[in-house]
């Protein structure tokens, strides 16, 4: 299956589950066909604030997720962000 999300959207975690011990994740999207899987996310993406009319088209994802001039390097503890 190809990546089911549009540019600019890194991830979608569906639902919130309800488990007090370990953290869970919906896996249906791993196994459904592209159309069915996409439907899972369509409602979520539709609930987001819409892009501004003057907004530029989303750029490809940056490879260095920690390259942020606004971040306070003294406070941020590097996590080795996988994204």
């Amino acid at each position: 299956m190809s990546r089911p999300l549009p540019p600019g959207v890194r991830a979608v975690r569906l639902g919130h589950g309800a488990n007090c011990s370990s953290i869970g994740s919906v896996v249906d999207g791993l196994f459904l066909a592209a159309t069915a899987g996409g439907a899972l996310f369509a409602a979520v993406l539709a609930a987001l604030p819409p892009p501004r009319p003057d907004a530029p088209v989303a750029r490809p994802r940056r490879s260095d997720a920690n390259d942020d001039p606004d971040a306070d390097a003294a406070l941020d503890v590097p996590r080795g962000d996988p994204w």
Partner: protein
Amino acid sequence: MKVRWESWGAWLRTDTPPALVALEDDEARARGLAPPARRPARPMPLEVHLAVTSRCGAGCHGCYLDARPDGEEPPRPQLEAILDALAAADVFTVAFGGGEPTTRTDLADLAMAARARRLVPVLTTSGLGLTPTKIERLRAFGQVNVSYDGAGSAYEAVRGFDGAASAESAIRALTKAGIPVGVNVVLTATTFAHLPATLRRARDLGAREAQLLRYKPAGRGASLDYHAKKLTPSQAASLGPTLRELTLAFADETPAFGLRIDCALVPFLSADPELAHRGDLLEALGIFGCEAGDGLAAVTVAGAVAPCSFLPATDLDAIHLAEGFPSNPGLVALRRSEAPEPCRSCPLQSVCRGGCKVVAHFVGGPAAAGRSLPDPECPRVLAERPSRCERWGERAPSP
């Protein structure tokens, strides 16, 4: 909608339908979201598991918290102060657990307190003794999951008593009350074989999703019994195909029935040829492996922060979560620990993060203290490190 800024962009929480969405920085700005002048310190948990009591009369054999009938019940002001701290830390979801949280008579007040702070409260319950009065206290929760490992003997094999009928009654009653309900199913060598029937039964009773949990050696589960109960290597390696079959079996049903796996089951996906090299897909679908001390935190009944509910608590008091979580030495060490090969080169490493540390340290014994070890039950680990696995008594499943 709740927005939380990160160094790379922002997490957004949608409520209808419930979801978390990660937007790149440019995408968030393009949608009219304005970042703060200074981004908050990170990491910070997205989800916190809050033990609201250690009191429980069920006596489940593998209880990770070692809950007992005379367990502790933190006073409400203490818990509300912790909820304040979670809100200040931009946590999205607080999962109430224990012990048995429904023993608290102020549960509705606590759920409303979480809502007032823009946290989404969810709850896990055994369902035992769930009266109509107790059910009414659960209306403010976003979802209630009932622990249900299977009908009859399957349930008893995990917990040591036959509570299946009570759990089924609870699922039915919660559904009838209009409360979103799911089930938590602990996967053991016994319950794995019954899984299709268990999920079918849960769905027929009204559950809308099942979360599969790997049995873990913590609390009363940290005994030699663990080795007898855990999934066999063959079962672990078959998790991917099993999930695929189950997903497709429920795909066309109305109402929908969803499937979740817990963080500790992610390593087993490495045996699935269609998923073993798809770390990108798992990331896009927001699937979390080990997020202990990072995207996930737990708070004990004593109010201390732990990386997860199965790992020992740190010296960080939960009311100082926002200030202390990023830099707490114990948590920093956990985040920086990097599992050796075969994890380092695994395409799923960015999601899996070396698998379950609780299992790795239990199986590794005293020699594992302070070390970063791969998950010994991961199929990839079993396949590539047979000598060590043989010392642990495992065998890689036959190809």
